[in-house]
């Protein structure tokens, strides 16, 4: 299972890449492997406000719909429009073309509860 070093992770299997005030959000390789065969992604609207640990998107596999929680609070600035036609990108490139949405971080956003790669690896029992 891939767990890139440069990302922060939520216990609920989302990742966030922080670039100054913008956070890019997706689901982890472990999460996509557990879900398998993603066939539909419901994204938040640009301009919507998302709150850390609250539902922000839905990813659907053949079998079930799964809530995706925002790892950080902020305003959605961009969503991955490619997923409408190619939801399977979340399976094939969860840390790249399969990203879900970007948020402008809230002033003084608290990132201290997010895990680093080592802590997330320990959580999922990966080597």
């Amino acid at each position, binding site marked *: 299972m891939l767990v890139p070093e440069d990302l922060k992770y939520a216990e*609920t299997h989302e990742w966030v890449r922080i670039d100054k005030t913008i956070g890019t959000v997706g689901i982890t390789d472990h*999460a996509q492997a*557990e879900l*398998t*065969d993603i*066939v539909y992604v419901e994204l938040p609207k640009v301009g919507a406000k998302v709150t850390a640990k609250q539902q922000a998107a839905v990813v659907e596999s*053949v079998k079930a719909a*799964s809530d*995706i929680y925002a790892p950080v609070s902020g305003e959605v600035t961009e969503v991955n429009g490619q997923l409408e036609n190619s939801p399977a990108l979340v399976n094939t490139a969860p840390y790249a073309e399969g990203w879900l949405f970007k948020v402008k971080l809230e002033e003084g956003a608290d990132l201290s509860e997010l895990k680093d790669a080592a802590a997330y690896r320990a959580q999922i029992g990966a080597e």
Partner: protein
Amino acid sequence: MFAAMAPTPSELQRTPLYGEHLRLRAKLIAFGGWEMPVYYTSILEEHQAVRQHAGIFDISHMGEVEISGPKAPEWLNSMLTNNLDRLSIGEGQYTLMLNDHGGVIDDLIVYRRSETGYFLVVNAAKIVEDVAWLQDHQVEGVSVSDQSQLFAAVAVQGPNAAKVFQTLGELPTRNHIGKFKLGSAPMLVARTGYTGEDGFEAFFPAETAAEVWCAFLELGQAEGLAPCGLGARDTLRLEACYPLNGSDLSADTTPLEAGLGIFVDLKKTSFIGQETLLRQAETGLTRRLVAVKLPPKSPPPRPHYPISVETEVIGELTSGTQSPTLGVGIGLGYVKIPFAKPGQAIEIDVRGRKFPATVEKKPLYKRNVSA
């Protein structure tokens, strides 16, 4: 994510093929009180294997019940909706067992094995209830024997299924059952299935389960035979519009409402639930189980999503998924009768948003039968 995923309760039953599933690194889930593979590699891959080549499913969780005795033909005919008198020896039929109000206890396949002997294959989650119901109504001259623990079973389904079985001998024709041998294992093989493809269901002693499973995988290697889990079983049966008891059928729905009237002989002497069905046939139904389809890029429909027309809620889905063959969302649901005709425009409520859909003719998938 996965907040709702509970740890596997230890009281779940396991089939004699559990060890084989672990060896193949299957993803296991709880289903009807059993710990079963939901997939081995991916639901989509396994679905395509069955549509294009062949797939093998562990169906050992299903129940096998033997009914025999001089009074068995007459008595069993009063317990089931289809007409048993039409069965020749070695032939089977899809049928339903109803409660006193005409609601479905179980849907099953009954095979006639001899003049007065029958073999019933029932749903895993209903074995206890079915056997209790049969025993409660049992009469002198009939024996009811639950053989579920003694049998393991697999379904081999797909266009290449017959090639996998051809070394066994002269194969049974559609809906027929026969005795065969694979290695040292005796088995009953029926030409039936739950996928919309040609296929077989084989029943054999539980202690030979692993041997038979491996033998089939080897026989099927050249035919593209893939182990398949319950995930693909569900998408396959839904495309073929076969109902799932507990979802599309229940104690509160009748076979007429479910569109299963051709498996009900209203004219036969008498059977449990007949009065309700006769009344429904006379006064007309108020709702019916229909197939629905969504356009591309819609979210997959799921059980319990409301179905509406304009502002009126006209029913709800009982099954739903993304169809791997059609590439769109499909489902089954009960709707009020005026809206049950194919072509009817409807809307499906997905998380508070309405998406357009249509009522479709059943089945949603039909295999090409050449010659």
